[in-house]
């Protein structure tokens, strides 16, 4: 087929937070006009501040704002946007929305609706995997019609098994089953949970892989039939099936394995007529066998680690593909260099059951310097809303080796201060100092095991010394209190002097 070049001049960014800002930046870099949208909770967000145009969607709840495809299309038409970038989450994997965009003559920056439907359902994706000759976990490729069918499949592949929702994601509608006796209750529980969560009770059954690593392959496909893979990301460090740390490349993936996984991923994408950026997720067992898990038909949160080791910009490439351009790279042009690690900084309290912690950021000191990239949408004074995902920032460290990337990330974490709300910064320090993580002895169960152990005391500095310093600091802050917010105190040539002034006031 002959695809002609359709230049994109204005992009509506149908998202919020760090990814919306990252998309605004990419548009500016490409001479494209970025149009931001915002809910009432995001009027003061950076993606609104930095965009060229901005329009209100509605109240804070996503269902009344960022999920309102109709409003988004209205705004796109009104402002004359020729494309919409969905980011991740929200409408990014909604085939109906992608279709509505195409019908409105507005380019959806992502795969065609048909490919999204084909690969969006886990059962249909498993069928596609079979057609593409890609290894997958043993088990059913269709929804289970009955408990009896579940029984027979389980007997056939052997326990332990995993029940999963076909429409699933984020661990919902998932049940691990180790013995036949438990299958009935688990089957029913998974069905009802799936019904509630995704409006579909379809569940299927697959062999449970012991201590698997989560390895995913980034693919790019243009509209001229060219597809390439950009190596893998390892996302084994997870909590409640949510990724916490991602890295590229994986410490255990050899060039040969990378090629086999990459070629399988490309086959799957092509078999489904996939275009633009996508990610194929695999489980890797400790024997080095990989099994297809699912495909994410969008840009991933963790795409920066791939950008750093390949030297490419995935968003720029997404937009160029959407313009009908052929891929500017062939597979042999892709070369991985160095190592990148990403920490997902969340507004949550690890010391208190990872309790969410929205609220005002009263103090912000962000790290910088060599090899540090941060994608975030926060600033000092920003009030983190309670209405959305609690991710504050993606802190990424790049260095020549994995070891150097870890020590660099630790350095950046030590520089980082987010005051006023609780975050998981200290939790990352603990993980990055853990010998198992440093030796890359990780799997999807690693973090739960680490959390089961008591947290080690911080090394180097003695508690006594730290508490002495804390006492001195606390006393000085106390002495400053009356003057603390005045410019005078900030500029005070010497804290003692202003302490004196402060006392004088009493």
């Amino acid at each position, binding site marked *: 087929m002959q695809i002609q070049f359709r230049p994109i001049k204005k992009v509506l960014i149908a998202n919020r937070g760090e990814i919306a800002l990252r998309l605004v930046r990419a548009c500016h870099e490409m001479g494209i006009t970025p149009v931001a949208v915002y809910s009432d909770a995001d009027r003061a967000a950076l993606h609104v501040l930095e965009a060229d145009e901005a329009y209100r969607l509605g109240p804070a709840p996503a269902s009344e704002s960022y999920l309102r495809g109709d409003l988004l299309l209205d705004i796109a038409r009104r402002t004359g946007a020729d494309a919409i970038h969905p980011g991740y989450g929200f409408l990014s994997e909604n085939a109906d929305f992608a279709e509505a965009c195409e019908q409105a003559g507005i380019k959806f920056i992502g795969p065609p609706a048909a490919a999204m439907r084909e690969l969006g359902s886990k059962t249909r994706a498993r069928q596609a995997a079979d057609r593409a000759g890609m290894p997958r976990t043993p088990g059913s490729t269709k929804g289970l019609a009955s408990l009896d069918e579940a029984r027979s499949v389980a007997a056939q592949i052997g326990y332990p098994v995993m029940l999963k929702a076909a429409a699933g994601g984020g661990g919902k509608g998932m049940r691990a089953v180790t013995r036949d006796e438990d299958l009935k209750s688990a089957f029913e529980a998974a069905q009802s949970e799936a019904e509630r969560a995704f409006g579909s009770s379809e569940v299927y059954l697959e062999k449970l892989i012991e201590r698997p690593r989560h390895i995913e392959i980034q693919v790019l496909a243009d509209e001229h039939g060219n597809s390439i893979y950009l190596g893998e990301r390892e996302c084994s460090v997870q909590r409640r099936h949510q990724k916490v740390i991602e890295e590229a490349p994986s410490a255990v993936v050899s060039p040969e394995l990378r090629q086999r996984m990459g070629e399988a991923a490309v086959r799957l994408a092509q078999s489904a007529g996939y275009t633009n950026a996508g990610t194929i997720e695999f489980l890797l067992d400790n024997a080095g066998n990989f099994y297809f898990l699912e495909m994410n038909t969008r840009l991933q949160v963790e795409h920066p680690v791939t950008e750093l080791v390949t030297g490419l910009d995935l968003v720029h490439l997404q937009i160029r593909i959407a313009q009908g351009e052929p891929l500017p790279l062939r597979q042999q042009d892709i070369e991985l260099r160095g190592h990148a690690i990403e920490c997902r900084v969340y507004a949550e309290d690890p010391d208190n059951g990872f309790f969410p912690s929205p609220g005002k950021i009263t103090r912000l000191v962000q790290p910088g310097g060599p090899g540090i990239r941060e994608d975030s949408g926060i600033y000092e004074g920003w009030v983190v809303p309670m*209405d959305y995902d609690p991710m504050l920032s993606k802190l990424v460290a790049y260095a020549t080796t994995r070891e150097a990337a870890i020590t660099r990330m630790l350095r950046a974490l030590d520089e980082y201060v987010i005051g006023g709300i609780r975050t998981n910064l200290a939790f990352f320090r603990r993980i990055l100092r853990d010998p198992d993580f440093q030796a890359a002895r990780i799997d999807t169960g690693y973090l739960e095991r680490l959390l089961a152990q008591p947290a080690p005391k911080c090394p180097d500095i003695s508690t006594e010394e730290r508490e*002495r*310093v*804390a*006492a001195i600091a*606390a006393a000085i*802050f106390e002495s400053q209190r009356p003057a603390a917010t005045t410019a005078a105190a900030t500029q005070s040539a010497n804290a003692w002097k202003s302490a004196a002034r402060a006392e004088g006031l009493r």
Partner: protein
Amino acid sequence: MKVEIEIAGRTRVVDFTRGEQTASVDGVAIPVEARLLRPGVLSLIVDGRAWRVILEESASETAVLIGGERIPHSVNDPRSLKARRAHASGADGPRPIKASMPGRVVRVLAQPGDAVVAHEGIVVIEAMKMQNELKSPKQGKVAEIRV
């Protein structure tokens, strides 16, 4: 000036004199050089060692951040409201639980009058797409629940 600081259940007396480059902690003198870079951000040089100390104040507590560690403390100062609050929330006596964040109350697990043990769930709150339990800080009896 003399300030009493309570850290990790221990009270320390910090004494420093204007203009001088030393301070004493519990009677022991140490060379100290301090500079407030901006409100809440203190550059402290104690006997040659450099520290970045950040002041963290919330409704519930005051703390300083040092080398990534969070050190809660209270100031024993009759003038200081914080001090009184800190004492009020000691191990003994009634202890209020406040939701550390806004959210929707999903379930109430305990009733006024119920006896609860430490870390027992009292109220379930949902925010940021997650449900979380507000737990009892100590053993005791639920006095009242306002939701």
